[in-house]
């Protein structure tokens, strides 16, 4: 889906229009609470001697997970082969079991023959975990489970075939 030059001009004009609106501001109290919270958190995470902020995630482990997920080519292979190192406490054996359960359920939704979206999505999630843009591997697993539950539900709905990727609906096939 691409925009025509006319639509691009409309988009630019509407963006400029939106910039004309006032921007809401946080209250002074909220700003003061924020400043205090940031100071407390800084004190808590900065190592007193080295004065550097400790990375909040075992990034090597996420990198390994990303490589496995991507290099395997298909998500279930990656999940089956992945055995996390014992060091990252955030990724326990139970998490591997949950991931495998997700893969197993994903396989059962065999009407889905295009793995690219889930691979891209997983890659992005792992990248976010690695960069710190997402904080919780557990949250990611929960989301995976939610996604597959949603897919299983969607597959039973009559409108599934008419749903396209930009959220618009079109007349049902057949």
């Amino acid at each position, binding site marked *: 889906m691409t925009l025509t030059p006319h639509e691009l001009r409309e988009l630019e004009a509407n963006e400029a229009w939106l910039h004309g609106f006032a921007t809401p501001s946080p209250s002074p109290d909220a700003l003061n609470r924020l400043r205090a919270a940031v*100071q407390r958190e800084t004190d808590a995470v900065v190592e007193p001697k080295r004065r550097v902020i400790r990375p909040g995630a075992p990034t090597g482990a996420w990198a390994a997970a990303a490589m496995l997920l991507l290099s395997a080519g298909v998500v279930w292979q990656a999940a089956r082969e992945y055995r996390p190192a014992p060091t990252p406490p955030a990724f326990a054996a139970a998490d591997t079991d949950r991931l495998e359960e997700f893969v197993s359920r994903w396989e059962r939704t065999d009407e889905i023959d295009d793995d690219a*979206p889930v691979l891209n999505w997983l890659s992005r999630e792992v990248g976010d975990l*690695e960069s710190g843009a997402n904080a919780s591997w557990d949250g990611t697993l929960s989301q995976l489970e939610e996604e597959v539950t949603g897919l299983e539900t969607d597959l039973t709905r009559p409108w599934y075939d008419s749903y396209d990727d930009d959220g618009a609906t079109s007349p049902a096939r057949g």
Partner: protein
Amino acid sequence: MNDESLRVIIAGAQRGDRAALAALVERYAGRLFGFFYHMTGRRDDAEEMMQEVFLRVVRMIGAYSDHGRFEPWLFRIAANLTRDRIRRDRRSPMVCVTESDEPDGDPLPGAFTDESPADRSEQNEEIDRLNAALAQLPEAERQVVMLRHFSQMSFKEIAELMGTPLGTALARAHRGLARLRVLMEGHEGASDHDAYAARAS
């Protein structure tokens, strides 16, 4: 603030320099608050989420590799937090609360502004109307529009963040803004695609 000064601040923050982290707060608190406020429609949620983002920044900035893309990284955290919050709140759907519904009834304090009370009141009405209109947009359109507006991310970065093709992100922005303008201005003609936008809703 230019790129070089931001790089200095980020390097300071990575060393655990309190002043550098405070400078990041001063620089980005307003934009993050605005993003969350328009995404959730609630001042208290927006303030809480703004704080959560900065706490994550403090914890994670050591893992951030500076390639001049700090803002996309920051708003990626914000977008992920919003997504998680919206999913969590689906069980109890968000209600768009206007400033005048807030318990203390205070107008938007001019934390970053020095407008008169009359000016602020007018701005509050406008912000209320904008929030009400934004609440009528599909979540995906609202997120693209707000990310673009507050984070100044490129459409390519937004598309990557949302896991969609570039064309889809552009189309959502075009459709969402056109729909928003119609809702705000209450007339036809903001876009040739108003009719389509209305149908799609």
